[in-house]
């Protein structure tokens, strides 16, 4: 009786260990298959991303951009006089009606921090830089959508503005001025050219490989 029990225990233990080992092995194998499948999916996605990136690179390649510029846009490199070394000089190009508030922002941005906390209005003391000439060098904007709008009232008028606020104000002013100047310098393409461009892009998209096309059509 005793020996039979021992044998039964031994056999049961062997079966349990074997079964446990098998189950663990099977589970691990299953997990490995899932991971391998995941890797395959990742690789496939990466391949698709690479393919898409390659297509985009090719279509947005610098030779293509140069060709568009040569044949249609005709943009040229900025002349040395168009590259300014400070925001204060940029403000010299502002039309006089809109200038004071921006001049104030620039002046406060570029001036050394005052010791007193009392604000001083210095717009009237700042004159546009004469060295760059008058904004009349540039023709009026061709594209009417980009125009200058009067700046909104400054927050905390009568109090010192933080450096960050001044920076934001100056950047906003600079962006407006730059946009206007760029718009003024870039002639609008003739409508016939735009139509050709649209048709050409349409033709290219039709010929594009499926991933690119899918993205383009979304």
């Amino acid at each position: 009786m005793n020996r039979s029990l021992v044998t039964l225990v031994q056999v049961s233990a062997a079966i349990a260990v074997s079964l446990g080992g098998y189950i663990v092995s099977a589970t691990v194998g299953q997990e490995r298959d899932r991971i391998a499948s995941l890797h395959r999916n990742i690789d496939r996605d990466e391949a698709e991303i690479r393919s898409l990136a390659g297509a985009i690179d090719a279509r947005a390649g610098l030779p293509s951009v140069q060709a568009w510029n040569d044949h249609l846009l005709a943009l040229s490199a900025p002349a040395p006089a168009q590259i300014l070394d400070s925001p204060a000089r940029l403000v010299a190009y502002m039309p006089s009606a809109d200038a004071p508030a921006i001049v104030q922002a620039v002046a406060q941005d570029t001036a050394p921090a005052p010791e007193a906390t009392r604000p001083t209005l210095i717009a009237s003391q700042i004159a546009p830089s004469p060295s760059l000439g008058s904004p009349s060098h540039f023709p009026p904007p061709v594209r009417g959508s980009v125009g200058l709008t009067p700046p909104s009232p400054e927050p905390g008028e009568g109090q010192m503005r933080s450096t960050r606020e001044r920076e934001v104000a100056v950047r906003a002013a600079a962006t407006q001025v730059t946009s206007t100047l760029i718009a003024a310098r870039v002639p609008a393409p003739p409508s016939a050219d735009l139509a050709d461009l649209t048709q050409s892009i349409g033709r290219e998209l039709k010929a594009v490989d499926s991933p690119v096309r899918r993205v383009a059509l979304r």
Partner: protein
Amino acid sequence: MSAAATFVDARAARAPRPWQAPAEAAAPLPIERARARLTLALLGFVAVTFVLVLRLMGLALLSAPPAHANSAQLAWSSSRADIVDRYGRALARGVESYAIVVRPKQLVTPAPMLAARLGQLFDRDPASFAARLSGGPKRLSGFLLRRASPEMARRVNALGDPGIEIEPEASRAYPQRQLAAHIVGFIGDEGHGLAGMERASDKSLLTPHAAPLTLSLDLRVQQALESELAAGMAKHSAAGAAGVVMDVDTGEVVAMASLPAYDPANPGGPRDPSHFDNATLGVYELGSTFKAITIAMALDTGAIAMKDSFDARAPIHVGRFTIHDDHPKSRILSLPEVFIYSSNIGTARIAQKVGEERQRAYLQRIGFLDTLQVELPERGKPQFPATWGESAVMTVGFGHGIAVSPLHLATAYAALVNGGVWRPATLLKVAPGTDRPGKRVFSQETSDHMRALMRLVVMKGTARQAEAKGYRIGGKTGTANKVIGGRYSQGKVVSTFAGAFPMDHPRYVVLAMLDTPQGTKDTYGFKTAGWVSAPIVRKLVERIGPMLGVAPDMTHDISVEGLLPGDAKAEE
């Protein structure tokens, strides 16, 4: 009698050995001994099984699976690393593609039927596939299609014929097309580089999971260089062009171009003339651009001083040569005048003062007597006189009789303006802040003098058309007759401008060369470097200056005060 009884009897009959204890006192009963052995064997079996199970569990749980072992995608993606510019923009990419191989002996589908299906698939005439499917009289295996897209490979595979096999193969896409083609190079059908960096770095590019090869190029500058060179080449109907933009402090080639260029994706045959790299493989007599080097070595050795003057009143006759000036002043010229008027006579006299030994030594130190040092396999070997007599010293002094590649010259100009340290050119990105080792070939003082002299050439000399306002360009023009069939051609020239900017603190060397340019109406028929190459550099610098962080500044410049007597103006 049973077998067990026989066994017991035999054991009992056997006499005990002297070293054994008496049997009747210690030995257990035979049946118990057998049972004990059986138990022992069973335990051993269980132990082995347990060890095996443990080992299996260990393998299953602890060992990491081989990365991407089952991924077919990696067969191509890891086969060749990308090539990118210094900001990570792709110049060459590995792309997924497949070779479709047909084994005629293993085809099960009748060839005409298969040809018809393939024709439908590829939208081609089925007859074009018939010959490949038959494999000729010997039914040899061959490629049905190379570099097929994954989609096409899947469709062909879906035909289900065991005689058609799909094999991954290395393939490259060059998204920037012909841009920097001579630098990037191309690969062959077997997936190995055949030209450019594809060939130079073939081994490292083929290393599995290798990081992209990062070049020193800036694609924006490269595009500007190629664009301006192409425009100049077209305007002057030149046979070829070359250009270089190089960082003077590190020797990194920021842009380098050779025209005509080719498309690396379709490079054409091995004898295609567009494969020739004018910037690194071609060697040219680069004419008066050498005068800067001659004057620098003369100043550096103390053979001359900045205040010296030279007799340029009459041509010099030496051996069978007569050295004369293209724009003769027929008077005594100061050193700056010799340089800005590009006087051959004055420079020959300076070279004479340097002498053969020192001239050779300097040319050796700046690499002009050795094959070009750069990573590309297409490297030019300079040509120079076998016998270096007095006439050679004088003619080499103003750039005749010695032929080097444009990149040789750019490297030397970098040393001229960077304080006198020569570094070999490199096409691999140098990490920011890294001090790339070099060797001093000129003193700081010599470099300072040369910067002022080169700036003077652009301000008042033969290179006035290179002046880009605010960018403080300095340099030297050089127009040399081409050597054709061992003789100097009278009508064909190589026009070169080599310089640097900004001259008050040089950062980049710029070189533009046109091979066999023609004069135009606006150049009054001139095809000299001052008319054809200098304007290219002006337009180029105006484009790339802001990109490279060099802002135009009208308020600063290098001082050239006192270099010229009065305010002399050079004539073209």
